[in-house]
């Protein structure tokens, strides 16, 4: 079937001109909010990573417009702002700005702090503007969060339930101080929260200009039509899918689970332009940081539909009306207090997106995409020759993406939660600023899942530790036991295979949640990253492409013969 949707038509209750211009301007308002954040955020790393997103919500918390720099932020903020508003129901005034991060108050994980500002005209809330930013440090067991040792939410840092950071236009400096002093980097947190504040205020100022120009009635009509449009896009998408129940499954790696794997099953029921996404079969919450709060789980489902549709512009809060997402409180994807949740926006989000995409394959096989390499990161802590401590985070060699009906996957792009979003530092920078030496960094032959459209290749990275004293390696991630699966007859890529090669002695595999691994000077770390999953039967891959793959060294001659059937065609 065709991947394009037939146009629906807006209702005629509103001047089409106002509608089109208001939509465009609201998009520009959210863009200006994130640019303001970029230009004013304090911690030097945040203005380069742009780990933040802005939204305009209507008075019932549906996303009208967004400028997201991080896919998983989208779809999580409506619930966060709804809970913030609920906490101050009947006690909100023009000029108030609310702040929260608590997963048990609608948040995702603690580093993601959201500021939300109600926009009033004539004494009533018409819209909300909100900006979420990933803060560098919010306290907790380990600097920067993501502590695999966390067993309860309090281990992960400061919980901020909804607060009025600004009351009637006056900044509560005492609250700001309280929050800032609970960070290892109080100045950064304070500066970044103030930048968030400028950004939401810019958003509100621009909305005021928009209301002055077009009037309350016209804008209310436009907001409704924009949301209806988002709903229409989703309904058209679903109406083009096979009706019925489609099951999807992915897994997470968790050592305490039987077989080391936690299943993530999804049951997707599509019926007449609506879909029920049932996550109630997911396992119980665990005493580890991989639980995903409800808002984050909903966001992951929305990201999956976004990838599935390929229509970044068309989907908005109205699209969510066509979806009914069901979870079971107390489960991995809707945990109750005090479950820790640190890895929810990366590891758990990837598994959830994968499971929903897996279910959607049944709904429309033409849109299927092979799975992506998962995130597998390690940090190496040690000291340089002059004794200065260093921590090096492994951002290189991310692994391949899945193939789809029309194209092969990409090499070296990595996880579904943020594919290709952050560039890795150069090999030269790595060597210049750490006692590390890169012996090889190259594509890994035969690592792409075989298929009519091949998965993108994983890579081979050989890193040598050249410090004088032993260093310590801590790993956290996914994708060793769970390789990127293929689709429509395509094959899986191999999972990540990381190993420590001591200067003398046997190789030691590195597990996804390894910690405290001693790395001797001269030891090598071998990182073979996963390739993406393939799409379709490899024997149907065009012969010219298989021959090209062999000539280019992407696929070995043996695999070309045995897996792709090159030269064996009758």
């Amino acid at each position, binding site marked *: 079937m065709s991947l394009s949707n037939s146009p629906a038509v807006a209702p*005629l209750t509103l001047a089409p001109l106002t509608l089109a211009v208001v939509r465009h301007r609201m998009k520009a308002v959210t863009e200006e909010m994130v640019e303001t954040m970029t230009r004013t955020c304090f911690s030097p790393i945040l203005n380069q990573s742009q780990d933040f997103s802005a939204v305009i919500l209507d008075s019932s918390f549906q996303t009208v417009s967004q400028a997201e720099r991080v896919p998983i932020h989208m779809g999580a903020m409506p619930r966060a702002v709804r809970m913030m508003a609920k906490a101050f129901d009947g006690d909100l005034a023009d000029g108030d700005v609310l702040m929260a991060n608590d997963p048990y108050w609608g948040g995702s994980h603690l580093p993601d702090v959201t500021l939300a500002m109600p926009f009033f005209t004539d004494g009533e809330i018409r819209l909300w503007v909100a900006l979420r930013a990933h803060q560098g440090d919010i306290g907790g067991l380990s600097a920067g969060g993501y502590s695999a040792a966390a067993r309860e939410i309090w281990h992960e840092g400061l919980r901020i339930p909804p607060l009025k950071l600004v009351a009637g236009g006056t900044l509560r400096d005492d609250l700001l101080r309280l929050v800032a002093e609970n960070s290892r980097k109080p100045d950064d947190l304070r500066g970044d929260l103030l930048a968030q504040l400028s950004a939401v205020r810019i958003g509100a100022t621009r909305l005021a200009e928009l209301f002055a120009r077009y009037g309350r009635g016209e804008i209310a009509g436009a907001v409704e039509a924009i949301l209806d*449009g988002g709903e229409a896009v989703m309904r058209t998408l679903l109406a083009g899918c096979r009706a019925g129940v489609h099951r999807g499954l992915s897994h997470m790696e968790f050592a305490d689970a039987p077989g080391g794997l936690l299943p993530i099953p999804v049951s997707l029921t599509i019926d007449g332009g609506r879909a029920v996404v049932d996550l109630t079969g997911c396992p119980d919450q665990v005493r580890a940081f991989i639980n995903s709060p409800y808002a984050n789980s909903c966001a992951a489902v929305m990201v999956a539909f976004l990838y599935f549709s390929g229509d970044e512009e*068309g989907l908005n809060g109205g699209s969510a009306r066509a979806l009914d997402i069901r979870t079971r409180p107390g489960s991995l994807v809707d945990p109750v207090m005090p479950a820790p949740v640190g890895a929810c926006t990366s590891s758990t989000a990837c598994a959830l997106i994968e499971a929903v995409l897996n279910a959607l394959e049944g709904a429309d096989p033409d849109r299927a995409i092979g799975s992506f390499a998962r995130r597998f990161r390690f940090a190496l802590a040690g000291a340089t020759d002059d004794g200065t401590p260093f921590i090096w985070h492994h951002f290189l060699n*991310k692994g391949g993406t899945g193939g789809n009906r029309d194209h092969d996957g990409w090499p070296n792009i990595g996880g579904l939660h943020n594919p290709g979003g952050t560039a890795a530092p150069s090999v030269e*920078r790595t060597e*210049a600023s750490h006692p590390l030496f890169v*012996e090889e960094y190259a594509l890994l032959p035969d690592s792409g899942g075989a298929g009519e459209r091949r998965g993108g290749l994983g890579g081979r990275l050989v890193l040598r530790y050249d410090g004088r004293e032993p260093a310590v390696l801590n790993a956290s991630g996914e994708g060793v036991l769970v390789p990127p699966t293929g689709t429509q007859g395509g094959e899986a890529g191999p999972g990540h295979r990381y190993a420590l090669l001591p200067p003398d002695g046997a190789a030691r595999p590195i597990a996804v949640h390894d910690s405290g691994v001693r790395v001797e000077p001269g030891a090598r770390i071998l990182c073979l990253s996963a390739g993406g999953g393939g799409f379709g039967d490899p024997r149907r891959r065009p012969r010219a492409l298989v021959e090209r793959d062999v000539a280019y060294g992407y696929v070995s001659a043996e695999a070309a013969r045995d897996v792709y059937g090159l030269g064996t065609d009758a």
Partner: protein
Amino acid sequence: MLARDMLIGVDVGGTFTDLVLADGSGGVSFVKSPSTPDDPSRGVVNALVQMAAERGESLERLLGQTRVFIHGTTVATNVLVQRNGARLGLITTRGFRDVLELREGARSNRYDLRAPAPDPLIPRPLRLEVTERVAADGTVLAPLDEAELGEAIATLRAAEVDAVVVSFLHAHKRPDHEAAVRAAIEGTGWRPFVSLGHEVLEREGEYDRLSTAAVNAYVGPALQDYLKRLVGQLKAAGIGVPLFVMQSNGGVLPIEEAGRRAYGAVTSGPAGGAMAGALFARTLGLPNLVTYDTGGTSTDVCVIKDGVPIERNRTDLADFRITAPAIEINPIGIGGGSVARIDASGILAVGPQSAGAVPGPACFGKSGTRATLTDANLVLGLISAETFLGGRMSLSVEAARSAVQADVAGPLGVSVEEAAWAVHILATAGITEGIRLATIRQGLDPRDFALMSFGGAGGLHADAVAQDLQIPTVVVPRMASVLSALGFLAADIRQDLQRFVSRPIRSMTAAELAILFDALEEEGRARLRASGVATDGIRVERSLECRYGRQVHGIPVRVGDSLDDQFDPAALERAFTETYRALYQHAHEGEAGILDVCRLSVYGALPKIDLPTQPAGPSDPAPAWRGRRSAYLGGFRELDVYWFDDLRHGMRISGPAIVESASTTILVGPGRVAAVDGIGNLLLNNG
């Protein structure tokens, strides 16, 4: 003997070749001549012949009077867009042949997961590894293996590559091995185009160096061939001065060097427009100016601050990166050919899809049938079917109306005029928001700027854009249609040099910095001398690229002109802090700034164009009046129409009115005043 006092700028575009000539007595004239895409040099000669004819003299005589000839070409750009460049081979460090394909693990679109991966400019079998290794501090860990090198060269030669890219790890610290490869290639008698990583970019970052060197080699041979052909034809026609080629950084290079540094020409077209904008900014006393150029498919926005276009050090195109200083061009997906449609949400959208020149807007009567911005403006009566492009192309109002009816008015249930007006306003909003973002991204407020519109499709929206952004003054230059070529004549020869440092500023001494900058300056001056520039015309600008230790990318920091503190580390650290504060509204006083790169630009002055001024005359614009036209601006109105070329200094027009020329149409909004200045520009403001 004829005086050699003419300046000629020639800009080859996709459709027209524009030529601007400034004679020694303050006169400026121009011609537009059709481009000849199969061999653009023919179009250049045609334009020269046409200019000579208009001046009533022979081509030989015209060229004999030429003092400076500056050429801008899209050859390099087209080669990249069409992916029909040179066949490349790579020689690189063992273990690292896939750097180009690994792309630092990044991609620009994070949502369209089905998009195909770009093909690297160098296919894998032609990416060869040799044994050699330099450490991060520049020491040689493994010498270059001569035998392996010989084999690699032989392999690439046998594969009949046109160009060889050489990129070794840490070559910016020790270029010996890369240089040795060039020598070895030359030693074999083979003469491919050779592009060395450390020569295109002397700084850390193996992907940046390799990608830039690969782009250079990919477009270099085609650009060199073209320039050779052009020089041959011009020499045969009697030109006696060296040619210069416009660069993306707003400067020019002598023709041989332009061919070797082909990556520098990739975005040179819009750079010419920005240089013209800068010329007007200085001439008109409007040092802060935003220019926007709306063409057929898109709008390019440039921000000029204090009379100088804002630059960037890295250009990320779809499939590759060029790391070199270039004037920052902010593209917006709105142009005359932008398609208007009702999208999947049922809401009107304009762009970024474009009908371009082919199939073109419906009213062009080519194969296009979809409603575009140009169709909407024609339906509204804002552009004229008869005088569009000076009457060279007649437009079909009927085709425009039926396209707007079918694509927009019908689905929305409104009149054709209402639909067209909606498309027009939405395009204005698109340009407005694009300009707002381009300024705030630099930490600037659009209200502190003037606005300049050029390009055929921009003038109808300029006044509304300015009012929307609360920009007080709009400038529409009379020679808007040949502005890039005009901008060439405001350019200097420019050489950019840099040295990678990567140390805390406060750990350096003034003496170290002075030695560093002096070495760069000496090299820059030597390069300029090689171009035949007299040393008294040389200007030097120094800048740094600095960051905090926790950051990845640096920001450019201008170094003051006072020689006293130029090399004083404390003053430089202050300059970094202040630049950071201007961009981000705060700084980290206690934290050490890292100096990544010392940068030096050497400018060799060329004779510049003088914009001719007219004496002021009467304010009544009646002599330029061409009649009245009914136009729809949310309601039908009768608008006075004026011919731009007949407007004289001092004339004033009260809006609403239309000003037309052969290349553009300007809408003067209700309540606004358009006045003609001494150099013939139209200035729009509140009167």
